[in-house]
């Protein structure tokens, strides 16, 4: 009988590599759970930040879309000596004739007039509410709507009736029109005929009681000059219109007119959200780095503890590459597990926060995919050095008795 002279290299089937790698994980569960926690925290922070930001931005964008960026307000400016200059009485009319303007709504705040639930309330307790003269164009221009009742129109603008802004109605304790509620305005009773829904781009209207210009003139001697004019332009002409508004409102001294765009505040919030995202994603990246170091640490300890097992595998015929592959895969799996936990946790956090704020849940798919890929990459990188150490354990290690 002769010996076979053929010499073959060892071989580890790809199908066997996965059980070999997970075998090492199964025996040290608690420590491994802790080690994937770092990655999970980092990934979940990043996914949640991206998800929450995206959801809130989606909400802001939806609001901007709904409210429009083409609303502008023209209001009393100040002259060179800093004194407030009222708008001309014709301002609304001249603005309406400006090209690109779709709708105009003049309003005038009645200084020193308050609105009260009854005539027994001391006048100084205004509740932060004001009284404004307005006409039927206000609600369509602001794209608002009435919650109950109806808005002022030319027919009833001269009667002692009022429409309450949403916050004003709440402050006055009027939820609906049952019992024909009345409010005490400047020493007269006004019947409430409607309550507006909240107006996001015109918070001052929210906190006002609105009466018609004829009533304001009759009861309070108002001269008909508006203090604030809401202007809705064609969206593509917004920029041009905003530049023309001051001159249109007061051709003689346009520098004494103030013009603003309420949607700028929302746009600014979008930008703030972007910069906050960068900060938190940066923090998440630091957590990931720490997580990766944690995995590398656990893997190195694992290699130290398992020198006998590694020696056994080498004695059974494992080549260095087989041992290295086993440890790299173990580390990769740790990263993957951390990534899965992190992505899920991040998604759940996003859902909870978005639901709590009433936003539409929007998690960017690239955050989910990127999170997993990043976690796997970190796991793999963290495993390279431990795997090299494992591969360098000599086969004679199996024979050590202590």
């Amino acid at each position, binding site marked *: 009988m002769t010996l076979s*002279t053929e010499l073959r290299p060892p071989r580890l089937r790809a199908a066997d590599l996965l059980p070999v790698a997970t075998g090492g994980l199964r025996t040290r569960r608690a420590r491994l759970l802790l080690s994937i926690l770092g990655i999970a925290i980092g990934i979940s922070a990043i996914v949640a930040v991206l998800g929450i930001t995206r959801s809130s931005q989606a909400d802001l964008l939806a609001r901007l879309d709904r409210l429009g960026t083409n609303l502008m307000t023209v209001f009393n400016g100040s002259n060179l000596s800093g004194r407030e200059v009222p708008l001309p009485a014709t301002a609304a009319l001249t603005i309406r004739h400006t090209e690109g303007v779709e709708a105009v709504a003049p309003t005038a705040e009645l200084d020193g007039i308050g609105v009260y639930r009854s005539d027994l309330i001391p006048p100084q307790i205004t509740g932060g509410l004001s009284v404004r003269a307005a006409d039927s164009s206000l609600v369509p221009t602001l794209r608002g709507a009435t919650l109950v009742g109806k808005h002022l129109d030319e027919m009833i603008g001269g009667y002692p009736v009022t429409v309450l802004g949403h916050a004003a109605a709440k402050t006055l304790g009027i939820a609906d029109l049952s019992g024909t509620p009345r409010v005490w305005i400047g020493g007269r009773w006004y019947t409430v005929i409607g309550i507006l829904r909240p107006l996001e781009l015109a918070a001052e209207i929210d906190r006002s009681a609105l009466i018609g210009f004829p009533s304001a003139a009759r009861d309070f001697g108002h001269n008909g000059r508006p203090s604030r004019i809401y202007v809705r332009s064609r969206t593509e002409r917004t920029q041009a219109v905003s530049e023309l508004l001051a001159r249109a409102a007061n051709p003689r001294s346009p520098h004494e007119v103030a013009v603003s765009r309420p949607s700028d505040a929302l746009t600014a919030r979008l930008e703030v959200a972007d910069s906050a995202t960068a900060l938190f994603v940066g923090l998440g990246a630091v957590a990931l780095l720490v997580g990766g170091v944690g995995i590398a640490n656990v893997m190195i300890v694992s290699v130290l503890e398992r020198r006998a097992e590694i*020696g056994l595998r080498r004695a059974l015929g494992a080549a*260095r590459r087989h041992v290295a592959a086993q440890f790299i895969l173990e580390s990769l799996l740790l990263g993957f597990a951390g990534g899965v936990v992190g992505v899920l946790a991040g998604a759940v956090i996003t859902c909870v926060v978005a639901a709590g704020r009433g936003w539409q849940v929007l998690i960017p798919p690239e955050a989910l995919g990127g999170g997993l890929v990043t976690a796997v990459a970190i796991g793999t990188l963290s495993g390279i050095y431990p795997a090299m150490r494992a591969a360098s354990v000599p086969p004679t290690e199996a024979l050590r008795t202590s």
Partner: protein
Amino acid sequence: MTAVLDVREAWKVYPGTPPVESVRGVSFTVERGELTTVVGASGSGKTTLLNLAAGLDRPTSGTIRIAGHPIENLSDRMLSGLRAHRLGVVFQRFHLLTHLSVTDNVAMGLLYRGVPAGLRRAAASEALERVGLSHRAGHRADRLSGGEQQRVAIARAVVGRPELVFADEPTGNLDSVSGAGVLELLGELNRDGTTIVVITHDAKVAAAGRRLIEMRDGRIVRDSGGTP
């Protein structure tokens, strides 16, 4: 008779001041079917000799042929292949993976030969039958007694029917009854044709072997048989 293991003038010197000469010019041959016992006190160099003979380490000088292949010139990968395909080792500390079943532990003996899992398990069942542990096949390895664990380790070493099986102090961690059982098993396997080299410092174990090689200070001081 054919030499399965041929050691010629093997030296193993570990660097240091002074250098430690663990194995000093050892020569011996193991023929197919032999049951050889290498005996020696602690520090006599027998474990170093086992490392060399089992292809776990390389000699500083001299030649070692395992199944006809001189190991000095083999790459680490090919030496690993030699271990995977031609050799089996039984360790004093059993070295079973406790999270695996007895069958899976035995099947590990074929893992690095690239044998598919189904065939590995079938071979493992057969090997367990040879060591009389078929009834324990599904148990976790750490649920077994020491004697049983060593029988599992022996099954793992012989599962691929290697040309040469080394056993390093196979009874070192066992009580005398279990130890006697393990020696008896090794004897049976040898009668069935397995070539076995046992390393021990235990005179009783040594007495059970048919050929005795005694080591002292890194040299063979007595060889009861075989070709020197």
